């Protein structure tokens, strides 16, 4: 995996010490940790708003900071696209002027393209205080994109938005990443939101990176695991439709996997098309396991798969089942014993359609021009 940034820094403010030595991989990376763990400070240090006490920062081959060589590239020359939690739009300018603030005509990203991508055509002549929280967030992202940043960094992009709007921003971010191959680093203390965006995580606690990798690997890690286990466990996976059917009023979503019969039965108003992508979110607590298909049951989803691992956290038992994608299932110790579940066994994962949360990403997202 290629690396976007190499960071080795030490930063102390009062009793808070941030000490990190990390290599941030390419793609979308989520920084997760409790409040006050140093996630936002890390982004500010990378952007240059704050100065480390020692160490070095290397991003996409450019040295931004090196204490020993006395290199410290000023904020305005770093092109680290930090989008703040509150958007920080300039209140005295229209949305159009905000968007064009850091725009250079030589930029590889055009104004019209960004406006269309983020669906903000109707806001251009408005002032920031006339826009909703979600609209302001999109404009702040658009303004940063037009500055052609090396990396797009988002500090708690979901927390200033209400529940209905917060996940609306996710498809836009995935669209940006796919269209411009731009590394995106997102800081959040909400693991559910982060996982809908990416599976590549860095777990931060007390100013240190205590683990990096996929959610399922980190969840059972002896160091990073306890931080992730404080939150509700969640399955979040991005799937592409191989084919779409309608069964008894439900959408049958067939995805690419080793189990051709596996399909998600979901209740969606919008008609999906083959090749469209969706993000599926299912709580592990809502899934049951059965050694065989069960016909006389209300749960409509029955995905066949193989148990990859069985792990215990306290009194909880988690089975990781490969149903074409890794699915985390929470069962009790007694169920594990009663069903004699073992790694390598074939099982069916049963869950209701209403337990599945779907975030459509649209077809335009898969276009790469």
């Amino acid at each position, binding site marked *: 995996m290629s690396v976007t940034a190499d960071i080795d820094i030490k930063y102390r403010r009062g009793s808070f010490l941030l000490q990190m030595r990390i290599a941030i991989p390419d793609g979308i990376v989520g920084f997760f940790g409790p409040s006050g763990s140093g996630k936002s400070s890390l982004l500010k240090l990378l*952007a*240059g*708003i704050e100065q480390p006490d020692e160490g070095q920062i290397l991003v996409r081959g450019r040295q931004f900071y090196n204490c020993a060589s006395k290199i410290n590239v*000023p*904020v*305005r*020359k*770093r*092109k*680290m*696209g*930090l989008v*703040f939690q*509150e958007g*920080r739009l*300039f*209140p*005295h300018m229209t949305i159009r002027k905000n968007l064009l*603030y*850091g725009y250079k005509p030589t930029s590889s990203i055009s104004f019209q393209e960004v406006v269309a991508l983020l669906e903000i055509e109707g806001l251009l002549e408005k002032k920031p205080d006339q826009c909703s929280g979600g609209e302001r967030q999109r404009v702040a992202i658009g*303004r*940063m994109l037009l*500055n052609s940043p090396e990396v797009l960094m988002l500090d708690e992009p979901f927390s200033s938005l209400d529940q209905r709007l917060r996940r609306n921003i996710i498809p836009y971010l995935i669209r940006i990443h796919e269209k411009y191959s731009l590394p995106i680093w997102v800081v959040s203390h909400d693991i559910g939101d982060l996982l809908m965006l990416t599976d590549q995580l860095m777990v931060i606690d007390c100013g240190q990176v205590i683990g990096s990798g996929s959610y399922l690997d980190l969840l059972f890690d002896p160091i990073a695991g306890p931080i992730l286990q404080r939150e509700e466990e969640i399955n979040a996976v991005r799937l592409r439709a191989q084919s779409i059917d309608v069964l008894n009023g439900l959408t049958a979503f067939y995805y690419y996997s080793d189990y051709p019969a596996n399909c998600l039965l979901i209740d969606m108003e919008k008609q999906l098309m083959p090749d469209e992508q969706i993000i599926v979110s299912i709580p592990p607590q809502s899934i049951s396991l059965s050694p065989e298909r069960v016909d006389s049951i209300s749960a409509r989803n029955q995905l066949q798969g193989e148990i990859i691992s069985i792990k215990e956290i306290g009194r909880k038992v988690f089975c990781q089942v490969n149903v074409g994608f890794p699915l985390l299932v929470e069962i009790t110790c007694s169920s594990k014993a009663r069903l004699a579940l073992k790694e390598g066994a074939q099982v069916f994962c049963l869950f209701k359609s209403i337990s599945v949360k779907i975030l459509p990403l649209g077809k335009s997202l898969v276009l790469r021009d």
Partner: protein
Amino acid sequence: MKAIVEAFLHIPMVMPPVTTGYVLLLIFGTHGLLGHFLKKNLGVNIAFSFSAAVVASIIVSFPLAVRTVKQAVEMVDERLEDAGAILGASRLKIFFTITVPLAFPGILSGFLLSFTRSLGEFGATITFAGNIFGETRTIPLALFSAMQTPGKEAEAFRLMLISIILSFVAMLASELVNRRYYKSVRL
């Protein structure tokens, strides 16, 4: 050092205006350091002229404007200036496109306040510019003169009314722009 410069700039605001006028007279008077030079080389005489009234008003009221403008600029949310820097703007661009427009109502309010203060200037003007009818007689000087002259009570009353109205209008305008200012700097 910064504190010393600031204290020096703000002296005229708290010093007795007559003292300010006397200092100005010592500098710009015909035998003063600068006054002698100006008279000899450029033939310009500042003391006891219209220019003297203007200089006295500016010296006394300007620190008030400086103080208000400084506060207005400092009140602009630094986070917006950081956002500008992240977007690649230079300090100069940030100052003129973010700081000044957002602080503008505060700046305007500062100058209005300073203007109102200068309208009431008395001590420094009478010491440095005198009380010359048609040339250096400002409203407070005219009011004082009218009060001293028997039979000019009506004129004094009119001048008093003009003074009150001008001060009220200036303060009202300052208050209104100040309100807009606090609204504008709110993120």
